[in-house]
């Protein structure tokens, strides 16, 4: 969760940058009529001024090009930001040790998560990640984690989420949410998370 907040904040500052980028592009357009004044640079007296002006214009043109080039990347960042914002609305589901079936608290969380999905824009794809605590073999946990993700997927479809919106993946014990080798850490790592995918 913390990671996501950081990602979101990073996203927001990117958005700020992005807004700045657009502004400079506007500025370039406004400056365009001034272009002919470049001709004045030929006169001796105006030379220092013109040099500065030329540099300024060149810089503006450069920024405009950069902004243009950055467009697709900005769009991708915007999408990522939206996805991160949507992901924040999902709550993580937790499991008992060596179990893939859903506890009552998990069902409560999933009905809220189902609402988030149902209210999201058409075309949103959600992947359910199944995770395990560090106990047990890596290989068995891959299969167990998938069982957890599948339980969540099944329950969400019973709540009206269309099957083609959902996909699952298991990370077994390869991506713990928290470090530590006690019950508190293990409980936080036996989980299913929700991510927006393309």
């Amino acid at each position, binding site marked *: 969760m913390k990671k996501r907040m950081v990602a979101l904040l990073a996203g927001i500052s990117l958005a700020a940058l992005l807004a700045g980028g657009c502004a400079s592009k506007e500025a370039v357009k406004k400056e365009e009529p001034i272009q002919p004044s470049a001709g004045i640079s030929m006169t001796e007296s105006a030379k220092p001024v013109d040099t500065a002006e030329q540099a300024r214009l060149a810089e503006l043109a450069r920024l405009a090009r950069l902004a243009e080039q950055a467009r697709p990347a900005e769009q991708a960042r915007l999408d990522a930001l939206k996805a991160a914002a949507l992901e924040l609305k999902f709550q993580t589901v937790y499991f008992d040790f060596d179990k893939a079936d859903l506890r009552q608290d998990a069902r409560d969380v999933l009905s809220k998560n189902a609402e988030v999905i149902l209210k999201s824009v058409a075309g949103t794809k959600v992947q359910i990640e199944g995770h395990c605590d560090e106990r047990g*073999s890596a*290989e068995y946990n891959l299969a*167990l984690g*998938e069982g957890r993700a*599948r339980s969540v997927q099944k329950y969400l479809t019973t709540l009206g989420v269309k099957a083609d919106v959902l996909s699952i993946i*298991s990370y077994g014990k390869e991506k713990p949410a928290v470090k530590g080798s006690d019950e508190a850490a293990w409980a936080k790592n036996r989980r299913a998370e929700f991510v927006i995918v393309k």
Partner: protein
Amino acid sequence: MKNWLFVILLVALPAVISAQSDYIEVNAPGNRQMKLAVEPSRAVDGSPTVDPVRHSADVIAFDMNMSGVVIAESRSLQLPAGNLSMADVNYAPWLSAGFDMLIRSELSLKGDQLTVEFRLFDVINRKMITAKRYLGTAKDLRRFSHSFADEILRVLTGEKGVFTTRIAYVSTQSGNKEIYVMDWDGYNPLPLTKNGSINLNPDFSPDGREIIFTSYKRRNPDLYRRSLSSPVEVPLSNRKGLNITGSWSPDGSKIALALSKDGDAEIYTLDKDGSHPTRLTTNPALDLYPAWSPDGKQIAFVSDRLGKPQIFVMKATGGEVRRLTTAGSYNVNPRWSPKGDKIAYSRMVSGGFHIFTIGTDGSSDTQLTTEGSNENPSWSADGRLICFSSVRSSGNGVYVMRADGTGQRKVSQVKGTYFQPVWSAH
């Protein structure tokens, strides 16, 4: 694999070898274990008498000790100066020092050009048993030494040693799980994958030239195949869901693995190109980690169909499933011994794991490790040794032990966490 030249100078003539069975009975009951002295190499032709000289003797002594066939020692005796000839052995001092056999070697290094000759002598019967001469470059010395250790084992036991084989493993040295390969004794570690994703469970092809492994590099646990000598990672099975715990059949024609494309994890076999999946298990429980019997007719695997993960055995075409492990509540990682008589596995014991072996009929269930937590056993091709990953106070890493649990040694050299080691065939 054999990118170096070797020439048998003094051929171990068949007559000589057959004579050995009369002379050396390493497995004869009541016989004490024989002692082998490995003399540091003599540098000839003005070659620098530096590290490699000692090195070679240490390599052979380590190999022979781990084999468990003899007790070996890197050792030199004070001999009169001018004892120049390889063949001219003064046996008496070796005999009185308690040795039954002696290895003497001569080494010449001109620039990068290495020539080394090893001879094995029978101290008691005062004769040479075998000899080999190798030509290569300086970096080949360890390999040549391992190769001569293989030759000694062949002469003493009639079976080829595994000292030129390699171990592939997963390590987090680079920050994420990547696959590496090293010599069986931990030297020459090389990174294989460098994709920055999660890479798991390498397994060697029977010829040792390729590996299969699972990687998340395309956001799904897919099975890939790659050569050890080329970085190209070819997707072999990227079916929906899990494509994990791939295991190459002994004849190289098939790959067994766990797929979840039809629901939960089940055992399938694929052709070696990844095509023609054949489902072997049909069970609502988790089935994974297939391990072939050496004749390719049976497959051991992990299943939690009775609640907790246990090891089962079935026909390699599916069916005739029987439970193998009955003790312990969590048994995983089966690997069939090359001789076919045992299965090594890991059992969860009070939170950690230990390595066990069990007869294929379920008898002689034996615990081999007691320290730390130990997982993913894998047999050497001759069945004498088992490698495994260990987390223990004396150091985490890839360990090697004899098949009876003795001689546990950490072989991985670089500090870090190691997972899922697998031993190549010959």
